């Protein structure tokens, strides 16, 4: 099967971006919106077609899925061995990502036609969305790690532009800056990792790198530094980049602030697609991790596990609904990372790999749904604060039902999709590491708790008096909600163990009821506690906050991570590095230069008397000189 046409999946949004970017201001807004949406619709259709084709139509049953280069062109020749190519790589995870990205992006495009209505930057919004879609699609289709890095950066800048979309708001500007710089810092790690990896393996190409018998994995042995091999170190550095984009601890601080962007953007970029790029990166290089550098994989597992519980605790205390969702995203991505970290390579060993991608898929659906639902709520009440909401179920029936479905899904209640994917992750963790497994159990309970705290806070609880009666969002916004709700409910029935596996071969996978039943129970427990505490107004939450005063305070301040970063940037970098350097430059370096000039000038002034032009003085010097010379000659020679 020829997959050259897949090139158009990213190229169509690129053209749309150029058209809207250059001519958008001359169009009526609705035309710009339609061009953007139709362009993405075309990409989505092509993606679905590719998925059908790859997974079913042209796949010979009982064989492994292979990776196919649909298209590749040389872009830049670096050294004798290293050349950057741009191309399209078709394999199970990239095809799955195509479906995820185009689906969510299309929903967000449609939704935004309603949500952004009347905004003066309407066309700009759609052109940025197209730029983002182009970059993200290019990222997942990358045939080599350098192409991925290129699109990685482009994704970063589209995120920057979209977070700062309301550029007249100082908080949005600050948030966009923070997101870009934090991820950029992590990208430096990614770059160093790429340099190390490519130098030692002589290639950027994913197919060569991940070949179990290829040069990368063959050279895995040897100790380079601190008891780990070069390969391990390069993968850890690469993972740093992934951790930055995926908001893993300690690079997560940009994600909550990124909620300053318009809500559809949060749904697309900061929930469903860009933030899982780190997961995708590890999954893309998974054979190298699993076969060549298990130590690096442990790092992935622990960072993921820690981030998931860290974020879940914080999420319980936040009052801004988008920030609750942001921390929830971080927590769920931690799950995905952990699943990759505990996975082995090949067959059933690769359960964690499959589970991670499965969860990525279902999470994209339900988290996008949650964000778009939150957007509909914000649209109705014009506030992000949970305190300004309550009892909205009567006013926003569709949003209410879809939001409830999403909450049940993320809480892992069967038969919704989250149950299946989370169960696989827990099963994979159970096999590998009991401690991580225990952590994930707790996180499952916390997740159910904070999601229902949010749900009750928005749709039940106290009767809030609204200035304007909140009204349900227009159809253009509710239809995407319904479609995503449909996806959240049924995505769990996809046979992922047949489609997306670590080595391309399918394996048997069953629900492990010994793990599933307790995990459902803990989810139900979390929901029950939330129901008691938040369904109607009670004093329990305050009492709880009182009795866990310190923990509550620390968690609500996000464990002071922002303050730590502020200290590092404001105090250390700005005040203790940059200011002294600037001072040093002006006063020492330049001072020396001026000093030299000054000395020259001083010397000139000092000897200028010798050229005074006064004849008497010349005569005097001349005579004295002659006398001295005569005396010297007479007496000394």
């Amino acid at each position, binding site marked *: 099967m020829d997959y050259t046409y897949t090139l158009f999946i990213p190229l169509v949004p690129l053209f749309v971006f150029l058209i809207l970017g250059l001519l958008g201001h001359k169009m009526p807004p609705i035309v710009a919106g339609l061009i953007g949406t139709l362009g993405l619709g075309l990409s989505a259709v092509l993606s679905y077609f590719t998925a059908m084709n790859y997974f079913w139509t042209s796949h010979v049953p009982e064989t492994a899925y292979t990776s196919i280069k649909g298209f590749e062109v*040389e*872009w*830049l*020749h*670096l*050294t004798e061995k*290293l050349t*950057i190519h741009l191309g399209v790589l078709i394999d199970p995870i990239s095809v799955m990502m195509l479906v995820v990205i185009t689906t969510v992006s299309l929903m967000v495009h449609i939704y935004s036609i309603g949500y952004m209505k009347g905004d003066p930057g309407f066309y700009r919004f759609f052109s940025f969305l197209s730029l983002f879609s182009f970059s993200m699609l290019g990222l997942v289709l990358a045939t080599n790690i*350098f192409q991925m890095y*290129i*699109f990685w*950066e*482009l994704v970063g*800048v589209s995120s920057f532009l979209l977070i*700062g979309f309301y*550029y*007249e*708001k*100082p908080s949005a*500007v*600050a948030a*966009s*800056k923070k997101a*870009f*710089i934090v991820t*950029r*810092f992590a*990208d*430096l790690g990614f*770059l*160093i990792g790429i*340099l*190390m990896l*490519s*130098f030692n393996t002589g290639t950027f190409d994913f197919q060569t790198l991940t070949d179990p018998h290829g040069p990368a994995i063959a050279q895995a042995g040897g100790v380079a530094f601190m008891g780990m091999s070069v390969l391990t170190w390069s993968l850890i550095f690469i993972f740093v980049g992934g951790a930055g984009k995926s908001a893993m601890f300690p690079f997560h601080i940009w994600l909550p602030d990124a909620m300053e962007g318009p809500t559809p953007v949060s749904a697309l970029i900061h929930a469903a697609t860009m933030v899982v790029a780190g997961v995708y990166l590890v999954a893309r290089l998974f054979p190298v991790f699993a076969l060549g550098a298990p130590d690096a994989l442990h790092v992935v597992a622990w960072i993921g596990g820690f981030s998931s519980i860290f974020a879940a605790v914080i999420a319980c205390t936040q009052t801004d609904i988008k920030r609750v969702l942001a921390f929830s995203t971080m927590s769920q991505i931690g799950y995905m990372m952990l699943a990759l970290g505990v996975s082995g390579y090949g067959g059933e060993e690769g359960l964690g790999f499959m589970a991670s991608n499965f969860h990525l898929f279902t999470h994209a659906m339900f988290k996008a749904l949650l964000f778009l639902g939150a957007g509909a709520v914000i649209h109705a009440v014009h506030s992000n604060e949970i305190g300004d909401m309550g009892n909205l179920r009567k006013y926003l029936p569709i949003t209410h039902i879809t939001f409830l479905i999403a909450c049940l899904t993320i809480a892992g209640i069967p038969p919704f999709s989250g149950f299946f994917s989370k169960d696989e992750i827990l099963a994979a963790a159970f096999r590998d590491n009991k401690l991580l497994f225990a952590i994930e159990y707790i996180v499952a309970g916390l997740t159910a708790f904070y999601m229902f705290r949010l749900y009750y806070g928005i749709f039940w609880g106290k009767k809030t008096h609204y200035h304007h009666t909140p009204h349900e969002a227009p159809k253009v916004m509710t239809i995407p909600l319904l479609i995503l709700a449909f996806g959240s409910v049924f995505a769990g029935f996809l046979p992922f163990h047949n489609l997306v596996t670590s080595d391309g071969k399918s394996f048997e996978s069953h629900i492990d009821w010994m793990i599933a039943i307790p995990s459902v129970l803990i989810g139900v427990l979390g929901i029950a506690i939330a129901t008691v505490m938040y369904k109607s107004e009670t004093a329990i939450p305050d009492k709880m906050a009182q009795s866990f005063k310190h923990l509550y305070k620390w968690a609500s301040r996000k464990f002071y991570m922002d303050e730590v970063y502020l200290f590092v940037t404001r105090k250390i*970098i*700005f005040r203790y*590095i*940059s*200011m002294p*350097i*600037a001072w040093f*430059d002006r006063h020492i*370096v*330049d001072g*020396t*230069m*001026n000093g030299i*000039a000054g000395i020259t000038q001083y010397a000139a002034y000092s000897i200028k008397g010798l050229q005074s032009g006064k004849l008497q003085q010349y005569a005097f010097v001349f005579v004295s000189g002659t006398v001295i010379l005569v005396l010297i000659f007479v007496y000394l020679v």
Partner: protein
Amino acid sequence: MNILNLFVIIPMLTVGGILLTKDLKQSRLVSAIGMGFQLILSFVLVYLYLKERQAGNTAAMLFTYDALWFPSLNIHYALGVDGISVAMIALTGIVVFAGIFASWKMELLPREFFISLIILASGVFGFFISLDLFTMFLFYELAVIPMYLLIGIWGSGPKEYSAMKLTLMLMAGSAMLLVGLLGIYFFSSPDPHALTFNLIEISKAHIPIGMQRFLFPFTFIGFGILGALFPFHTWSPDGHASAPTAVSMLHAGVLMKLGGYGAFRVAIFLMPEAAHEQAWIFLILTAISVVYGAFSAIVQTDLKYINAYSSVSHCGLVLFAVLMMNQTAMNGAIVQMISHGLMTALFFALIGMIYGRTHTRLINEMGGLMKVIPFLGVVYVIAGLASLGLPGFSGFVAEMIIFVGSFQHTDLFHRVITIVAASSIVITAVYILRVVGTLLLGPIKNDHFLHLEDAKWYERISTITLVIAITAIGTAPYWLTDMINYSLVPIVQKLSSIQLTSLY
């Protein structure tokens, strides 16, 4: 007639033409036409060069021309270009063209201004086409001298101080350079009657290693001063801050490239052994430039100072890569020169245009300009993104080639210093986003800025030309890198052969 002669003749004719004009309108028109021709000619040269190469001409230098003009010292007017100089000429053509349009409203002594500017440009063109070291030096001086007048007369702020400082520091560089060049001349041939200034012939001879050790630092630092080598860079912030827009553009855009180009073409190419021995010292200095310039830029509040320090950082990377002395890194150095030339010219053009409207360059006094001057705002963001190395723009290509090239050295010293230099990509992001955030975004701070006019047609020509060039290199870099790579082969061969025979 040799096409390369035109690069000197057209500016002369343009200068003659300007002498006949009466006012601003006429002189800028003549300049624009002359430099428009020059721009077209640059691209014709690129085309002819590529055609010649495709036809199978493998000579190191093409379009050579030679005329003896000072027999007793064997000084020639020798011309010739390879892929590297062709690329630099194209850069100069673009920047000069954009510079003319950026000075469209030069009210004060317009004729004299354009004449000085074009003499400067002709010096730069002459430098890049010369093969004779003495003639090269002559053109170099021709480019540096008008700078004094341009800043001293048409500048702003403490212009006399800045002009003096810049000229004196660059003259100190020239003095060192002259020592280096004369030294090279006297050892250019074992036969004292066959001494030559010709670059290609000297490269075939072998300068004694003892002499190289002595001459290399003179030549390298001499060029390095112009390339803003730490700690000899302080002329740059003051000079740029006081210089009028087009002069900043030309100076940072092309004149500073003379330093990088000369360091590579003369110092390293002719004295490879000493270069190998002493590279570590200069690598440390350049790595300091890269990081130090970027950190200094973080706390500056004057737009021109920010950009001047940013230039210190980016030009530091040029010299850094040159000193890595392998094919990939050197290729990166050339691309970085071109990329930085275009980006910084764009920045200075924009700064001039913004200053012309707001009458301040302090970012704290401005804010929210995106709302009132969207065209300039968007272009500023593009320039910023290009400067911080976003893929799709030239800066990314250059930086990546440099880092990959530098990483090909296996020893720890080169590795560590590469990582230090690479960390500048983060620091650059900090100062660029700080400027963009404070200057363009956020609420409008000052009511006076509510009714600023967006870019005029001539300003659009100036900026769009540069944006197109930056994006063209960023999206399709291979034609440029291939052209450079081809010409780097003989140079790298010389470097590596000598490294093996005489050092180890």
